[in-house]
């Protein structure tokens, strides 16, 4: 039994995440996780896992559109990918060992400084 109003609410969350993820090349997961937790009442750790299952196909679509438009750099992407796979494994281990709330605030401050520098 499908509840249509829930379906459209959920699809709208997906739509906004997809637009941001495609337009800014990032951030889809950062929108999806709190949206699922607050609007769809999904538990935090399941929201993180589900976000990856959603963002992966969206990122593949966006990547194809960027690549077919000639927007890519193979050498740079290769180096970042190798680094991020190793970092991602370490991050997943650290997640269970330390609180990420303090880190979030530090990165939030970095992001705001970077945002101001990028604007000017």
């Amino acid at each position, binding site marked *: 039994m499908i509840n249509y109003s829930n379906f459209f609410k959920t699809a709208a969350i997906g739509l906004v995440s997809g637009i941001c993820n495609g337009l800014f090349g990032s951030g889809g997961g950062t929108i999806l996780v709190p949206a699922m937790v607050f609007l769809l009442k999904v538990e935090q750790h399941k929201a993180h896992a589900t976000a990856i299952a959603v963002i992966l196909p969206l990122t593949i679509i966006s990547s194809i559109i960027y690549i077919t438009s000639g927007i890519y750099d193979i050498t740079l992407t290769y180096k970042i990918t190798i680094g991020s796979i190793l970092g991602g494994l370490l991050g997943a281990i650290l997640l269970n060992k330390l609180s990420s709330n303090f880190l979030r605030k530090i990165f939030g401050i970095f*992001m*705001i400084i970077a945002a*101001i520098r990028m604007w000017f």
Partner: protein
Amino acid sequence: MVLYLIGFLSGIIGGMGIGGGTILIPALILAFNIDQHIAQSVNLISFIPMAIVALIAHFLNKNIKINILLALIVGGIIGSFLGSLIAVKLSSSLLKKLFSIFLFVMGLYEIFYKTHKK
């Protein structure tokens, strides 16, 4: 070598679920003078292999909410086409301005974020 390190650091942040890309993109642009479009493309593509591995692990641990997946992906695919097609048409300078607004809002969100335990 520095680029591997930047990837490594953003990977740690991403692996912790804090959004590695919103850190990686400004780092590439501000420290290495990479073009806005290219930085976004790098972040998108580099996410894919790690996400496949993480997804298999989450699937085996039954952490994925299958019942809401279809609606999220249907909406998300439409959004991805819209967002990406707009992004590739915009000039780098305009995209950079829009990104900086997005980054500012995301930064505020991270600062005021509170973990909800249920």
